[in-house]
Each structure stands twice: as structure tokens, then as C-alpha cells.
């Protein structure tokens, strides 16, 4: 059985691209924690939208529930109240602040399909 060189080269390229992609994905999803200052804080501003949710649940309550759920994935807590900046923008603070890995994790959880009927986009992640 003879294998054409073109096909062989294409296969080799495919294997290399696949391997590099897997390594890159593994590197991107790897948790690397760094020390965080004790009194530090992180300000989070999100933009939230809901469709088909329960009528007696306000958007602020849904965002608050989402924050409380997602903070379980990191080592910090939500400090104070979740405040509404306008109709669909909300602000919260996380104490102590988060390292980059935890920030990505928290942002992923907030923007993921974590709570039904709620879609959230992160607007700001800023250390205070």
C-alpha cells in the first residue's frame, strides 16, 4: 500500500496543529494562582438581560443569585449589596481581590449559562 506524499504531509500538518491546539487549550484552562493582598477589592460591573424569567423575580435578584453562585468557584466573597447602576447594569465588589486565574474563572461563570433565563456580560473587572 503506497501513501501519497501530499496526503502524508497533510496528515503530519494535521497532527501538529492538533497537538499544538491541545497544548494551548490545556495551558489556557490551567489554574495558576498568585498571592493576593488581604485588604484588596475587585469591582465588578455587569450588564444583565433576562427573557422568560419568573415575573416576581427582579433582574437585580437574579444577578445577585448569579454572583452568589459564582463566588463559590473562587476564594473570595461578595462584599456589601449589589447595586443597580441603571436598568440593566449592576455593580458588586469582591473581597479580597482575585488573581488573574480566579478573575477568568469568575468571568466565565458569570457569562456562562449558569442561571436560567439570565444572560450576563461583564463590563468591568477592576481592582480597587
Amino acid at each position, binding site marked *: 500500500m503506497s501513501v501519497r506524499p501530499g496526503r502524508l504531509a497533510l496528515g503530519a500538518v494535521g497532527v501538529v496543529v492538533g497537538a499544538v491546539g491541545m497544548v494551548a487549550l490545556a495551558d489556557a484552562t490551567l489554574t495558576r494562582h498568585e498571592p493576593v493582598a488581604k485588604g484588596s477589592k475587585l469591582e465588578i460591573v455587569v450588564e444583565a438581560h433576562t427573557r422568560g424569567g419568573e415575573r416576581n423575580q427582579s433582574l437585580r435578584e437574579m444577578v445577585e443569585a448569579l454572583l452568589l453562585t459564582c463566588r463559590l468557584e473562587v476564594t473570595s466573597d461578595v462584599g456589601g449589596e449589589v447595586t443597580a447602576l441603571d436598568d440593566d447594569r449592576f455593580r458588586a465588589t469582591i473581597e479580597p481581590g482575585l488573581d488573574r486565574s480566579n478573575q477568568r474563572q469568575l468571568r466565565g*461563570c458569570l457569562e*456562562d449559562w449558569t442561571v436560567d433565563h439570565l444572560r450576563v456580560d461583564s463590563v468591568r473587572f477592576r481592582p480597587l
Partner: protein
Amino acid sequence: MKTIAWLAGIATVVAAAAYMVVSLNRWEWNRALFFGLILLIAEVGLCTGLILRKLGRIEAVDPETLQVLRDHRGEPADRFAWMKESSTQLNVFITFLVGGGVLLSGVAWLVDRLASKTTTPVGEERLAKDLEAIAYPRGGLVVDDMTVLAQDVPGADDAQIHKLLRRASRT
């Protein structure tokens, strides 16, 4: 129409794979799971389509060619034709049968002779040993005259003398 369906399937696979990788990179596990599921479904659909297409091509063989091949199919080889030959002719099978029988009989005779020479004497020795346990005492069970007379001797009430006499009666 078929082309559109194939393109849609391929596009779904590519898009689902891309979104899955992006979601994983963003730590959005629920989205990654969803797109992974879509990818899996699209893959199964495409693979099923490929298999069905392959099967369709197999069925689409030119019937004339197939008929020509069937018409010119060779006669199946009769591998037991030698059994139909006349029994008056000696052939290899009979030779092997008879020769094998003779050889087997010889081996069986040898085994029988060897077994009779080795197992019978050993068995007899073992039986003799086992019978010793239930054998009568030497001299029989009847007490001899000497013992009977000895018991009438004065002073023969002694326990040691009785014991001695009983022992003597056994020998």
C-alpha cells in the same frame, strides 16, 4: 439539496467545535458542554450519512456485469469425491484406517501388559497389610491345655499370673 445538507452538516461540526474550544478557553463549562453535544450529534449525523452513501454505492452495481459474473461462476469443488469411488478399490483412507487400528491396538496391548505387571503386586501387598488389622491372633482363639491347667494351680489368683497366662494363650 444533498450538497446543501452536507455543507450544513460540515458547517455545524466546524462551528460547534470552534465554539466549544472558545467556551473552554473562557471557562464557560455549560456552554462548552452544550457545544460539545452539538458537535457529537453533528458528527454522528455526518458519519451515518457517509455510511449510507457508501452502502448506496455498493447496491448500485451494474446488473449486467453482475449477471455475467454469476453466469460464469465456476463449479464448486467436490472435496469428498474420493468417497464416491467403488469400495473394491483400496485407497489411502482405508490404508490409514487399518494401519491406525493396528497401531492403536498395539499400544493398548502394551499399556495393558505394563499395568498388569506393576499394579497387581502392589495392590496385593496393600491388601495384605490392610488385612493384618482384622486377622485372628496366632494360635487361634481357643486356649491351649497348658493354660487351662495352669489356672488351677494354687496361688494362680494373682493378677500378674493371670496376665501372664493370657499373654501365653495368645502366642
